[in-house]
Each structure stands twice: as C-alpha cells, then as structure tokens.
C-alpha cells in the first residue's frame, strides 16, 4: 500500500514536480477561491479562467510566455466587463457572459490555425501537470507568496466585503478599491495556475475545495485551511490515480476535488440532521 502511494513520486522527477506545483496551485486557489465563493464571484472566476484562452493561444503560436499571454487575456476580459457595466445598463452577469463566450471562441479560432489543433487545445484546457519545469515552479512559488501577502494585507477589508459591502464602506475601506484588488488576486491565481492544471480545471480547484471548506469551517481562516487541505489531497490522489490507471492527470485531480466536495456536503448534512434531532426532544 505504502508502495502504491510513494513509489510513483520517489521514482520520477516529473511526478515530484507535478506534486510540488499542484500543492502550490492548491494553496493559491484555496485563498483566492475562498473569496470567489464568499463574494459570489464564481461566474467571473470561470470567465477569467476561460477568457485567458486567446492570450495563451497567441502566446503558444507566436512562441512567447504563456503566462504573459494569459495576463493579457485577463486584462482584456476585466477591461471589457468594466467597460460594458459602466457604459450601459446591462448587468455584470451579462457583460461577463458576453466576454466569456467571445474570448473562448476567439481562443478556439486562434488555436485552430495551429497544426496540432486538438493537442494544443487539450494542453491549454487541461494543463501539463506532467511537464512542469523548475522555472514554472519558481514562478508559482513567487505568485503564491504574492497571493498570500495580498490576502494577509487586505484581511480586514476582504472580511468586511464578504460580510457586508456597505459595512466595509462605512468602516472606511473603499468597496471599489478592495473589490478590484480581490479580482486582481483571483486573476493572478488563474494566470499562474493554468500551466499546471489548465484553464478549464483552474476553475475547479478555485471553487470546489473552497466550497467544501465553507461547509465545514467555523471561520474564514479555517475555511482557507480546509480548502488548501482538500486541494492538496486532490492533487496527491489525482496524480496517483492517473499514474496507476494511466488516466489524464489534470482531469483526475478535478474529479477528486468534486468527490471531496460531495463528501463534505454529506458530512455537513448528516451533522445538521443530528443537530436538529438533538434539538427536537427539548422542543427548541
């Protein structure tokens, strides 16, 4: 059993790099994902994860850094959403949706010019966790530290925003400023994480562990800790499953996060039911 768990990582640097990068992505996604879940930003998180696609596609075809391409894609995405919501009466949901499908289609159109269409597309959507370079790990470490620093510095305004934006404003923390800082943090997470698990699956690591954390935790710090734990567990288990059964690694990781979410969901429901039963005899 130990053999089954350890050997894949002991034998191969590819698997070691995958585990390290996956762990870093899980930590970054736990922090950013906590606020995605608490502030109801799932849709913009999803849109960002896909909106970066054309940027990455151009980068792949033109041969420059995918992270730079993703950053350009995210900037266009956020800029477009802001422009539409400020200059029209359309809701931000509508603006996000428009940019989302537009950018996704643009990405596919660009990639379709490439010789190995489906290979490139799969690589962008599902990542290359089994092809992580040391440079990529260093970039991921720096980004994770930056994300943790942003969350630590903005802990009070972020908590107030998640609690009640009006309360944040009256307490002297600009809602617009800190909302944008939060979006920036989420965008940074998506941009650096897509290499590891792909644009499609960043989103899974962004919301599934954090939602499971929200169900189990009693305060926001615990929610992040739970989310990080679930994320790291998913990466570890997903990599093992993909190694032993020869399955796609990125998708295996995401499936594990979703299974873990439903496990947390079941635990929370059982707990609630038991609490309700304990209350009933007393007539509370």
């Amino acid at each position, binding site marked *: 059993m130990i053999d089954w768990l350890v050997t894949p990582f002991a034998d191969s640097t590819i698997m070691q790099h995958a585990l390290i990068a996956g762990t870093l992505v899980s930590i970054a996604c736990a922090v950013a994902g906590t606020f995605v*879940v*608490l502030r*109801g930003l799932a849709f913009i998180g999803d849109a960002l994860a896909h909106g970066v696609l054309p940027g990455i596609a151009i980068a792949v075809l033109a041969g420059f850094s995918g992270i730079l391409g993703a950053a350009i894609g995210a900037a266009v995405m956020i800029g477009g959403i802001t422009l539409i919501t400020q200059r029209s009466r359309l809701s931000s949901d509508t603006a996000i949706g428009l940019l989302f499908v537009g950018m996704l289609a643009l990405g596919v159109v660009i990639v379709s010019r490439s010789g190995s269409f489906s290979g490139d597309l799969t690589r962008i959507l599902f990542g290359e966790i089994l092809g992580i370079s040391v440079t990529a790990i260093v970039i991921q470490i720096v980004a994770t530290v930056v994300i943790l620093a942003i969350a630590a*510095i*903005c802990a*009070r*305004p972020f*908590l*107030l925003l*998640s*609690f*009640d*934006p*009006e*309360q944040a*404003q*009256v*307490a*002297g*923390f600009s809602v617009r400023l800190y909302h944008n800082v939060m979006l920036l943090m989420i965008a940074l997470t998506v941009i650096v994480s897509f290499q590891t698990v792909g644009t499609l699956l960043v989103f899974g690591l962004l919301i599934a562990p954090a939602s499971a*954390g*929200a169900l189990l*935790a*009693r*305060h*926001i710090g*615990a*929610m992040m800790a739970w989310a990080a734990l679930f994320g790291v567990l998913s990466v570890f288990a997903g990599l093992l499953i993909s190694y032993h059964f020869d399955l796609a690694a990125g998708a295996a990781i995401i499936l594990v996060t979703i299974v873990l979410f439903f496990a947390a969901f079941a635990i929370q429901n059982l707990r609630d039911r038991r*609490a309700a039963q304990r209350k009933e005899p007393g007539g509370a």
Partner: protein
Amino acid sequence: MPSLINAEDLSIGYGRDVVVAGVSFELIPGEAFALIGTNGSGKSTLLKTVVGLLPPLDGRLAVFDGRPGADHRRIAYLGQFHQSGFVLPIRAVDVVRMGRFPGLGLWRPMTRHDNDAVREAMRTMGIEALAETPLRSMSGGQQQRTYLAQVLAHQADLLVLDEPTSGLDAGGRELYLQAIDAELRRGASVLVATHDIQEEAALCHRVMLLARRVVAVGPPAQVLTPETLLATFGVVITGDRKLHVIEGRHGHEGPGKPPG
C-alpha cells in the same frame, strides 16, 4: 455646542429619484433622534446618506462638520440587511471584532483595549456565552444582538441604526434600550430608524415623522399625535391609553402592531 449632523433643505434619494426633499434637522452630542415612517418613507435613505453610502442630491449635509462618510472612525452604522447570508463561516466574536476595524484600519493589531471593548459589547447584549458560535447557527434574534454588539464595540460618537430591534425578543429589546441609554450617557448620539413609537421613539429626545416628506419634527410628546401618525402611517387606532398603528404599505414584517 457643535452639531454632529447638520442638514439644511436636504434632498435624499437614489440616482435622480428624490425620495424626500426639504429635510432640515440638527443632531447635537448626547442626543437621541428617531426617524419614524413606513417602509419606503425615506428613513433608510436618510440614514444611508448620513453615513455616506448615498450622495446628497441637493441642499446641505454636514456630518462632524465635514463630508458624510469622511470620518469613519467616529460613526457606527447598523444597516437593515446583511448580505453575507449563511455562506460566510464566521463566529459571533469575529462579527463583533469588525466593530473595531474602523479605528484600527488596515494594519494596527488588536490591543487588549480592543478585546475588552469586544467582550464588553457582547456582555451588554447578553451574548458573551455565544462568542464562539457560528453566526449561521444562531437564531435571527441572536444574530441581531450580535450586529448590535458590533456597533457598541465601535465606541463611536454617532450611532446610526436602521430598525435595530427588528427580530429581537423582549429580553433583547430591554438590553438594547439599556445599551442605548449607556451610550447616550457616555456622550454619544444616536440616530435611529424605527417602527416602535411606544418604547424606542418615546425614549428619544426628538423624532422626525417621514412619509416621503417631513411630516413633523420635535419632542415625541408634542409630535406623536393621532393626526401626525395618521399622515405618516395611514391608519391609526387610539386605544385605552396607547396609540396603535396599522401599517398598510408595510414591506417585510406583516401587518405591524395588532390593536388592543
């Protein structure tokens, strides 16, 4: 004595829609001032304008002799709705601690003085035993006590409260009235929107009756008459010793106080 709030011919509302025009009043230190009216009468709009969440549409409004919302350290606000719902995992004590954030800003760590203020506020509202309880497993009344404790923990010069007793049981209301009394004795001022003309409003130094216009302003004994209440609420029944108000256009609490 300098006034905490000074409104002259103020128009309030959302965007271009004026809800109430021609509001003039002054709030002095140590004074309790109640806004009375149905939902949609402009109470919440006025409170939001005072705390700086809405810009004044016309006229003049000075809070602490400055722009509304400029001095967040001196003002505590209890809104009517909390958007967090039940998603945010947060303990009661964390909610109350947020009352110290305006004074601490982004960086300064919580001191013993801050923690004492938090504990004291929770004791005042009778929830010190619930400190570690998640907000989502508390009853509506306990949650409202927690929000009130947050406002008290601030130790602000001006408390702006939007229907602070909604959801409170009799014990909670009693604790709230005592707490407000203590805040006033400390020298703080209170601006409160309420439906409760018997207890809460009667204890205030002055009241303003609102019905998308200012119906009357003055001490409760002078202002709370069947005529003004009729103009404010629509339907009034005078009982043996008390006035009873039936609110026709009431949004979220049902038909209000039953007669008799």
